[in-house]
């Protein structure tokens, strides 16, 4: 009978149950979606990296221009086997949406021990002689070729850096399983000589893969190889580059996961709200059942079983919704990873059972945890007390100071956790969530205070009805407090993330304004925005220098070099006289830094670089040069938002002393007449001609393009911020509906006393509007604290950047409007139902 009563109670409140399920389901969906997107991107990346590395254990890497081919030949002549040369580069198709590919040039005769890409297993359909002898001959995955509509013998164009090249599809790769299929779908495989020709790196290799056996034999082999290496080259473990890149994007993934947990945090609050409501609504029934002899344990079991059913249903809805949402998020996540870290095609959402299990555990476990307190509350009541609604409200009001003190305690605890030295993101987020919980516990006290302050105003403006609207919020505190806390948290999260993005953007804008000093920028198209490593044609550079209207030219060369066994980004600058303003020094002696930087052997490092490696001005950074490893003194730390992994900056003079590479990646052109920049852009476009793909952009255009990348990076954050709000809105709707419907009898009395439907509507919406307003006002300081933590703790610990706090009034106004709007909107349906309900039945309601 007890179960039947429980089931009928749920069935009698379909809207409430439905909305609760929706709220939990959305929370679960967001967490699952983020995890799936992160995991799919990670697996795609590692799968791709593993496919490329094959069974290689080590690799020989060189400087900016790679490893000389003679080295490989010399090692082979010396009798060393188990080696395979590789030439690789990201390229893009011209046309067909500019899809990116990884050009992978290999020696088919050396490949067998390493990879199965061009061995007999995978390439039965590939005549090796064609691949080796036909200029531009390349292989694509069978599925990719089919998708692009390419057949054997077809030719197509690719963009390699700034150069357009013709490629012929010589055959297709037919992988043995789906995992391999995914890993090779964005590979363009050629013979090594073809790759060298296509990339313009004849005589050079990107690296040489090695298979080194374990133990003394392997060590001896490594010693032999090392002895033969030139100063510019070294041996690194094959997995190091994959690990380094994975490490780089870890901060990004952790932050996404934290944002998704925020949505779940709001979701769990709403579950607590729903379950509390469900218990509160049934207090008379529970009292009656207890009076009839139902034990506390039996009552507890009923409530917890209800929670289990709700949690299970919501999880069943949330998991598939998460998979669908994950597909959408994957595109955004992949775009950001491609923009910031590495080009990798992630086309398929991987759904690991562990993610689904974790999602289910969160959904069901979260629901059960949230239901624990209301279930205990229901069992603690004596049969008589359970019958009285006023008992509950009195008890709730009495608990307000206690809750407030707990809140203050949690705020202090959270602040202390954040103040702990260390860089752990998990600890930082722990502190952040503790602060949020503290703020939530302060909500009832703040609500009572706000209503106390607003009541005279409402009374003066709207009379008794105004007082009713304000007092109603506190009179039903057991119901209103949780929903207001949930709304407050959601809006605070929106404010916090909004202020953080705004501050970040404003810092980037200010940095771009100072960093982009030249009038026009000439560069090769880059597939990873933050890694512009493609080079410009030397002839073009000379023509630009001599072009009419050019006053001065600054140059930039971006390369990746080894900083013992880790690849780092080195930006080599020849700064034009006006260009030094581009570098904003965070640390270092301004009097000596520029001279030492330009030619004196000193380097500058960006904030993230210094932060990740715990470096200060005056320390040294070891780089592998063409002449071997060298320690460069750090003369200053500069502000740079261009790369989250951080960069080392070096003067051109210093670079040319240590490296033989003379290429350039970009030019910063200063106009003789700063008023004629557009004309200069046109002139330079004419100078560049069409033989090479070159980007020639004015200062403003480059700034806009940079900000476009920034906005793309934060698109996923914005989506998650919106989803948190949707979860909160569903919760508020559910709570307000339940609360308003519960007041059916009171509303009926008011109608009998002469309130028109419009007045009832106004009363209900003004009360919920007030709840939204109070939650919104509370959310502003909480959101600001959240923003401070995100900007000065989380962001710093994730990336090492210093951001300037930017408080845009619009965000605060939007937050208030959002809170009030959501609350009023959520009240529209219940208010309409109340104002149009059948009066006789409303009066009969108990």
């Amino acid at each position, binding site marked *: 009978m007890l179960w039947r009563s429980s089931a009928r109670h749920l069935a009698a409140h379909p809207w409430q149950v439905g909305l609760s399920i929706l709220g939990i389901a959305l929370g679960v969906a967001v967490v699952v979606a983020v995890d799936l997107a992160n995991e799919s991107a990670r697996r795609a990346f590692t799968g791709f990296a593993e496919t490329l590395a094959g069974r290689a254990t080590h690799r020989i890497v060189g400087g900016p221009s790679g490893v000389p081919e003679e080295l490989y030949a010399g090692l082979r002549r010396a009798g060393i086997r188990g080696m395979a040369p590789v030439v690789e580069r990201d390229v893009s198709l011209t046309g067909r949406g500019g899809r990116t590919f990884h050009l992978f040039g290999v020696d088919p005769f050396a490949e067998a021990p390493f990879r199965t890409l061009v061995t007999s297993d995978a390439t039965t359909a590939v005549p090796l002689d064609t691949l080796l002898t036909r200029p531009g001959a390349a292989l694509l995955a069978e599925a990719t070729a089919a998708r692009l509509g390419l057949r054997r013998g077809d030719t197509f164009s690719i963009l390699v850096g700034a150069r357009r090249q013709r490629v012929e599809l010589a055959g297709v790769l037919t992988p043995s399983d789906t995992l391999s299929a995914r890993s090779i779908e964005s590979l363009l495989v050629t013979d090594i000589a073809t790759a060298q020709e296509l990339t313009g790196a004849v005589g050079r290799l990107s690296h040489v893969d090695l298979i080194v056996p374990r133990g003394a034999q392997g060590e001896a082999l490594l010693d032999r190889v090392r002895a033969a290496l030139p100063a510019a080259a070294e041996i690194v473990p094959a997995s190091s580059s994959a690990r380094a890149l994975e490490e780089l994007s870890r901060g990004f993934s952790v932050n996404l996961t934290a944002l998704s947990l925020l949505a779940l945090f709001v979701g769990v609050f709403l579950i607590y709200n729903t379950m509390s409501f469900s218990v509160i609504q049934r207090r008379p029934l529970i009292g009656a059942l207890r009076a009839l002899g139902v034990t506390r344990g039996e009552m507890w079991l009923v409530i917890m079983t209800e929670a289990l059913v709700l949690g299970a249903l919501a999880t069943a809805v949330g998991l598939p919704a998460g998979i669908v949402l994950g597909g959408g998020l994957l595109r955004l996540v992949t775009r950001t990873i491609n923009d910031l870290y590495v080009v990798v095609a992630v086309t398929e959402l991987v759904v690991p059972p562990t993610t689904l299990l974790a999602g289910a555990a969160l959904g069901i476990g979260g629901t059960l945890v949230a239901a624990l307190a209301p279930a205990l509350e229901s069992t603690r009541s004596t049969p008589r007390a359970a019958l009285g609604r006023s008992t509950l409200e009195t008890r709730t009001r009495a608990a307000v100071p206690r809750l407030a003190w707990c809140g203050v305690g949690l705020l202090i605890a959270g602040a202390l956790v954040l103040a702990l030295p260390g860089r752990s993101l998990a600890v930082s987020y722990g502190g952040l969530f503790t602060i949020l919980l503290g703020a939530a516990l302060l909500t009832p006290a703040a609500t009572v205070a706000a209503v106390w302050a607003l009541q005279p105003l409402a009374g003066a403006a709207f009379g*008794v009805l105004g*007082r009713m609207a304000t*007092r*109603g919020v506190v*009179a039903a505190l057991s119901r209103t407090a949780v929903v207001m806390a949930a709304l407050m948290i959601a809006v605070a999260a929106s404010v916090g993330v909004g202020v953080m993005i705004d501050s970040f953007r404003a810092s980037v804008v200010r940095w771009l304004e100072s960093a982009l000093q030249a009038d026009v920028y000439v560069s090769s198209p880059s597939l990873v925005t933050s890694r512009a490593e493609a080079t410009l044609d030397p002839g073009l550079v000379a023509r630009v220098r001599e072009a009419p209207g050019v006053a001065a030219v600054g140059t930039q060369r971006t390369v990746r070099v080894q900083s013992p066994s880790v690849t780092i980004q080195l930006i080599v600058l020849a700064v034009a006289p006006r260009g030094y303003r581009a570098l904003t020094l965070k640390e270092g002696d301004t009097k000596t830094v520029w001279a030492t930087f330009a030619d004196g052997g000193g380097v500058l490092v960006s904030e993230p670089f210094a932060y990740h490696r715990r470096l200060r001005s005056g320390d040294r950074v070891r780089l592998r040069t063409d002449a071997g490893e060298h320690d460069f003194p750090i003369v200053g730390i500069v502000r740079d938002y261009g790369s989250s992994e951080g960069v080392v900056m070096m003067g051109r003079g210093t670079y040319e002393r240590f490296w033989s590479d003379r290429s350039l990646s970009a030019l910063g052109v200063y106009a003789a007449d700063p008023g004629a920049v557009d004309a200069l852009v046109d002139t330079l476009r004419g100078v560049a001609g069409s033989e090479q793909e070159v980007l020639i952009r004015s200062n403003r255009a480059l700034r806009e393009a940079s900000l476009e990348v920034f906005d793309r990076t934060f698109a996923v954050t914005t989506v998650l911020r919106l989803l948190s709000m949707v979860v909160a809105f569903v919760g508020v709707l559910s709570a307000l509906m339940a609360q308003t419907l519960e007041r059916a*009898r009171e509303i009926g009395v008011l109608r009998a*006393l*002469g309130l028109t439907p*419009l007045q009832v509507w106004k009363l209900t919406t003004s009360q919920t509007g007030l709840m939204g307003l109070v939650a919104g006002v509370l959310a502003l300081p909480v959101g600001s604290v959240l923003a401070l933590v995100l900007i000065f703790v989380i962001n710093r610990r994730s990336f090492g950047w210093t951001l300037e706090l930017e408080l845009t009034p619009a965000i605060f106004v939007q937050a208030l409007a959002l809170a009030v709007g959501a609350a009023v909107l959520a009240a529209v349906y219940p208010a309409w139902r109340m104002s149009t309900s059948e009066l*006789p039945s409303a009066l009969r309601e108990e």
Partner: protein
Amino acid sequence: MKSTDPFPPLSTAAAVELSGVVKVYREGESERVVLRDVDLTVTPGEIVVLLGRSGSGKSTLLNLISGIDLPNSGVVRVEGVDVAALSDTERTRFRRRRIGFIFQFFNLIPTLTVEENLRLPLELNGIDGAMGRRHAVDVLTAVGLGDRVASFPDRLSGGEQQRVAVARALVHDPALVLADEPTGNLDAESARQVLGLLANLARGAGRTVIAASHSEEVAALADRVLTLADGRLVPSR
């Protein structure tokens, strides 16, 4: 008080007049006839008590008179106004101006103080500020609760709450007071007090009262007692 009255009483009209009133409720597939062809005329100032078993239709009859519910057929006139002919908003305005309600479960607004519960109908009728406050306190004093004006309803006993409800029903000077089981939830002593107040205040001001009740004590106050049985009204005395 407001000088303009959208529903001026017709001097010759009966306070309440029901003719051929039928009320049927649908319950799933079946229909339940609650009132069958009911005729009733109540003269101004008359106190009428409706007796009848639970579910006999007493509350339904009061709801039809107040315009809270509408008949399936027949006419309900209050002070000459055909209630069913009014729009929902007009009916609400008519009710707020002309009718005072007393419920079995008091139905005071829990978020308003005792005084504010009385000022609500006054404000709805356009009487607010100091004048409304003074009048509310006067009426509360008349029901013996002048010292509880600032209390919230949950601080009052059942008898006190129902005295506030009586005061609320009368505070805006309605022509007609409808009381649904006004003593149904009170002990004998409180019931006597409430009935005494209702009779004195209503008779003193010449108001018409229609009360639904099981109680013979309530019936003892009446000028006329009617019994509802099988959906029809029959005079008891």
